């Protein structure tokens, strides 16, 4: 199957779904699911292929190239599978809303554009797909109108700034090297000066940084993630932010090359070291800001930024285990963050749009599958052993500690402890505690929603127990970037001289001990099932609806840290935006709209010219 046909199916399918929606909603739903699953199937068939071919030469004389290798295969797989799960989840979620056809069109177009980004082999089509992705995302963020419009504007303005920076980079590469084909560029860059490489990295870095929400460029993300329709938030957080990561990996290790990249700048001010610190800051601050949030999706959105920090930290440390952990964490973050967003979506759907963490509670008894999925997702993002998040985080810590970067490792670990607190709050406030009277009649989520949740939960556990399977793919990626491969001869862990990880050991220990403890528990006298109001309160009656301890769950921490956890960059950008608006307002006063005024301007200008001519006779 050639790559053009893949992209034609992806883009053509999106429009097919749109037009079939005009005929019948059932047909549209069927087509949407069919096309997204077909893409997963085709891409999984392309495993291990290494194709590169020029499909069109006429674009202002520039060849447009499509290619696939292990790196693009992995990303394409993530895009198509998370995309299809999101489409399946959307079936119920979006059914009774308006503009459903438009929603599906945009959702599928975003997916196709992202597939285009990872499958192109030259920077022109890269830029074109990048722009398609940005704009379709903008439309879908604004889907709900109202305050979503403001979030969308923020997103698109930052995106455009990013693309403009990238455009400058592309122009400069074309004028300097006279080629934009990625596979040819790596040879050209070996002779480039470090100053030029730095320039290129900064121009592209702004574009990629905005998309992946690295710390100073992250401000669009919390608004956009919380305002977008929830199934799309899963794509936005799980996949779309990873496009920036793809760009970073492509430029660091496949265009500029390992040795050049690690040699940029003197000792401590080495670029990759600075990037590590940017990653560390991106972990710590957003994770603790997340702790203050009361909107479930906003909390998860801030965590997206934090997790991106781990990925940046992993890929810029520049050791084989570090880069592998960065790529692996990218994959893992796509699974558990998509899962968490989808659980919020399920809760939101069943409660008619309640996302406020202070007005839910006790839903574990009503929505058991969603609760288990949320718990697995939370375990994944925290990195509890036997989930995939554990393996990638373990790899990051290990490479940081053994390369004597304990402060970076501390930032990473601190981020994890912040994650534990806020994810427990997330699970507790929605699913645990007292079930309020108004939520008494909540039903469990429909099957198509649960399907996506179950699949993602299984993937998280599966990759957590057998990390060798994804690591094999990652091994060949880092191998082609010039790193030495990791030792993953057994699929249940990573062997090395300086500390071995063996997940099957942990699994057997937990399962074995768990069964013994459970048997002992069974031996004890059977316990009596009681209602939630039948509990011990030191002699006081427990009023209904009043005793779910959620508001300001970590009150002492809020009092202590809230003054420090302000998003300074957002405030700065808002001020710049405001100032620009004021300047434009002043300029607009000149354009009054009256013809008389314009005639007056012309007369004044003529008079000015005549004056100059009379005085100095320049013309």
């Amino acid at each position, binding site marked *: 199957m050639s790559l053009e046909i893949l992209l034609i199916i992806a883009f053509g399918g999106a429009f097919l779904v749109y037009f079939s929606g005009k005929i019948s909603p059932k047909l549209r739903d069927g087509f949407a699911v069919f096309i997204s699953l077909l893409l997963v199937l085709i891409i999984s068939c392309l495993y291990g292929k290494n194709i590169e071919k020029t499909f069109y030469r006429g674009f202002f004389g520039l060849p447009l190239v499509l290619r696939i290798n292990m790196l693009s295969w992995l990303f394409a797989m993530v895009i198509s599978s998370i995309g299809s799960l999101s489409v399946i989840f959307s079936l119920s979620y979006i059914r009774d809303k308006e503009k459903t056809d438009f929603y599906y069109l945009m959702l599928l177009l975003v997916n196709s554009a992202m597939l285009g980004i990872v499958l192109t082999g030259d920077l022109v089509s890269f830029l074109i797909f990048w722009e398609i992705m940005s704009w379709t995302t903008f439309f879908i963020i604004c889907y709900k109108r109202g305050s979503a419009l403001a979030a969308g504007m923020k997103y698109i303005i930052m995106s455009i700034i990013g693309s403009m920076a990238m455009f400058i980079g592309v122009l400069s590469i074309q004028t300097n090297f006279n080629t934009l084909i990625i596979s040819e560029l790596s040879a050209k860059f070996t002779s480039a000066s470090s100053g030029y490489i730095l320039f290129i990295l900064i121009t592209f870095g702004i574009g990629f940084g905005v998309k992946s929400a690295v710390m100073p460029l992250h401000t669009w993300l919390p608004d956009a993630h919380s305002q977008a329709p929830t199934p799309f938030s899963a794509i936005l957080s799980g996949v779309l932010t990873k496009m920036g990561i793809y760009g970073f990996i492509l430029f660091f290790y496949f265009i500029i090359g390992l040795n050049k990249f690690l040699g940029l700048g003197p000792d401590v001010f080495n670029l990759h070291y600075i990037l590590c610190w940017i990653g560390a800051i991106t972990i710590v601050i957003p994770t603790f800001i997340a702790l203050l949030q009361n909107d479930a999706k906003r909390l998860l959105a801030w965590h997206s930024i934090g997790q991106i920090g781990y990925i940046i930290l992993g890929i810029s440390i520049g050791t084989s285990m570090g880069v592998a952990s960065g790529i692996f964490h990218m994959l893992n973050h796509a699974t558990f963050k998509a899962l968490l967003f989808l659980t919020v979506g399920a809760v939101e759907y069943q409660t008619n749009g309640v996302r406020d963490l202070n007005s839910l509670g006790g839903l574990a008894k009503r929505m058991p599958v969603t609760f288990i999925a949320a*718990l697995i997702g939370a375990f994944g993002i925290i990195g509890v*052993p036997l989930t995939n998040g554990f393996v990638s985080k373990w790899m990051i810590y290990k490479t940081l500690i053994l390369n004597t970067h*304990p402060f970076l490792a501390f930032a990473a670990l601190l981020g994890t402890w912040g994650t534990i*607190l806020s994810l427990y709050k997330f699970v507790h406030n929605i699913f*645990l505690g007292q079930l309020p009277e108004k939520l008494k009649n909540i039903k469990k989520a429909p099957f198509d929603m649960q399907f996506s949740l179950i699949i993602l939960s299984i993937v998280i556990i599966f990759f957590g127990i057998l990390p060798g399977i994804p690591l094999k793919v990652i091994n060949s990626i880092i191998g082609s970037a010039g790193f030495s491969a990791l030792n993953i001869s057994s699929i249940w862990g990573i062997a090395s001289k300086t500390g071995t990880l*063996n997940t099957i*050991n942990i699994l057997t220990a937990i399962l074995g001990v768990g069964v013994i403890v459970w048997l002992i528990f069974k031996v004890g006298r059977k316990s009596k099932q009681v209602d939630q*109001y039948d509990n011990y309160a030191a002699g006081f009656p427990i009023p209904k609806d009043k005793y779910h301890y959620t508001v300001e769950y970590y009150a*002492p*921490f809020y009092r202590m840290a809230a003054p420090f956890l302000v998003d300074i960059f957002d405030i700065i950008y808002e001020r710049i935006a405001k100032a620009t608006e004021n300047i434009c307002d002043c300029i607009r006063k000149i354009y009054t709209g009256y013809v008389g005024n314009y005639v007056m301007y012309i007369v004044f200008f003529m008079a000015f010219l005549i004056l100059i001519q009379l005085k100095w006779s320049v013309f």
Partner: protein
Amino acid sequence: MNIIAIFISPLIALITGMFFLGISRKIMARLQWRYGPPVIQPVIDVIRSFSQMSISHGSLFDFGIILSLTGSFVLILFLPIGELCPLTSGGLIAFIYLMLLGPFGLALSGAIAANPNSSIGISRKFLLSLSYEIPMLLVFLSVMTYYGTISLVDIVKIQASSGWAIGSWTLVLPGIAYFLILPAILGVRPFEVVKASQEISSGPIAEFGGKHLAFSTLQHALHMFVGLALFVDIFLGGWTLFGLLDFLSGTAWFVILGIIIFLLKMTVVFVIEIFINAVYPRYRIEQAMNYLLKWPTLISFIGLIIVVLVK
């Protein structure tokens, strides 16, 4: 050897943990001029409550407490007790993560009970653990960076040849910091904010009775054992005793004496903690956080800087 260790080390941990619970009550009583209960009173309590009927708030309520005790037992399997260390995987980093299972299970179980006291207790538990984990992580990072390994077994082995970590001037500050946060890890006064029986009816375990209470007591005993054993393993040289036992090496006596020395060291540390427990009143949660994030964090931070400079 490993197969035997898998069965022996949880047993040792359980017996020692329950013994610690017993002597803590005895010592507290003697310090307050009372006679005190017999040392095996906690064991009697566990057996008795195990045979009593309990209430349950659903299957998650049961699952949480099972997960919690499982997590604590699993930790023991990855912990070097003397020379016994049945399983190794992922070193100290994996160990830190495995330490999450116990509290998380308890938190799930406590929170599904819909008792506000439990929720408050859990919230305090997470805040307290955030505050003591920050210095603790710094301490662990200094040790791992200094010895250049992430394996707990290796850390003990290196100390056998180069002397106790707390005796070397580079690691003395992390050692002090760990000792300062040890009461918070063990949950004794002045950091008894989580259970705080007079305020929030023993917090997370407010709803537990019968076998649930028995399990949570066992979990608490194991948790104390792990906190103390980590201190002994990392800073007090594990089973080593200034090389006095070297003439026995290779024999079974060496292993047995190693375990006894290890447990004796733990007992000494624990008794000191009980003395601290006896003379201090309870902090409020804010005060506890303030203290933990101030002195131990500062000391361990300076310790980590020294380690990095030396390396």
